């Protein structure tokens, strides 16, 4: 998956893509996130934060993006390993990203904590959205 932003330079060691089409897929991607985080020996709290962020973003992809994909990668930046997740949808896109990243801002039926909350749960957070074309959210949690 290409990256258009100035993210940290990383090497990908392993990669897998999961569909997000039903709410069962949301369960599946968070189980995959759990498994990968456990494999990298994240602490229990870090695993929990990472899986929770995964759940929020996967639900966003499903509810707001009309479904999409999650690509999971084990990445390395020379010093440490981490997991990068990229959520891609071709939904309506986000008109105002700054607003969407605010706590409590919601267009769905949620509490508006999906984007802002998951941003707090990871080390790196990138979002790129184009109206009418879709949204790509990338997160990295370093070990």
């Amino acid at each position, binding site marked *: 998956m290409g990256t258009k932003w100035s993210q940290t330079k990383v090497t990908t060691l392993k990669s897998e893509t999961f569909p997000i089409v039903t*709410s*069962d897929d*949301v*369960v599946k991607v*968070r*189980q995959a996130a*759990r498994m990968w985080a456990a494999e990298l020996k994240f602490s*229990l*709290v870090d*695993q*929990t*934060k990472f*899986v*929770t962020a995964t*759940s*929020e973003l996967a*639900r966003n992809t499903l509810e707001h993006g009309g479904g999409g994909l999650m690509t999971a990668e084990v990445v390395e930046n020379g010093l440490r390993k981490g997991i990068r997740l990229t959520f891609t949808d071709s939904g309506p896109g986000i008109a105002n990203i700054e607003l969407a990243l605010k*706590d409590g801002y919601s267009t769905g039926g*949620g*509490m508006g*904590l*999906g984007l*802002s*909350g*998951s941003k*707090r*749960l990871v080390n790196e957070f990138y979002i790129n959205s184009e109206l009418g074309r879709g949204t790509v959210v990338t997160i990295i949690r370093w070990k």
Partner: protein
Amino acid sequence: MDRIPILKMGDCLLVTIQVDMHDELAMSLQEDLTAQIAKYASRGVLIDISSLEIVDSFIGRMLANIAAMSRVLDAQTVLTGMQPAVAITLVELGMSLPGIRTALNVERGMALLQEFIGDEVESDQGDDTEE
């Protein structure tokens, strides 16, 4: 579709969430629980989440909804057994679940409910009755 079992214990309803719930399952629990409160005129609801590995904003909202709906139906809700890592994550996520009473485990949760209800849930073997 599968459902989360709700146990009736005297005046109370007992729910143990043991599976990684998908969203529809969480919604159906909300409906089932309110229906059962009305059916049995339950006074208390205990929800044990000790086997839940994550609580995201959706599940958090569902739990808050259950507590609010129960209150409107004259029942108290106690949430028990939240794992420490889940508590840390929830607060960082921005959800501190105001309005939901919690207890560390089922035993304490039950004691708390009894206190609210001021009644006995255990059948006849109760040793002291206050009212």
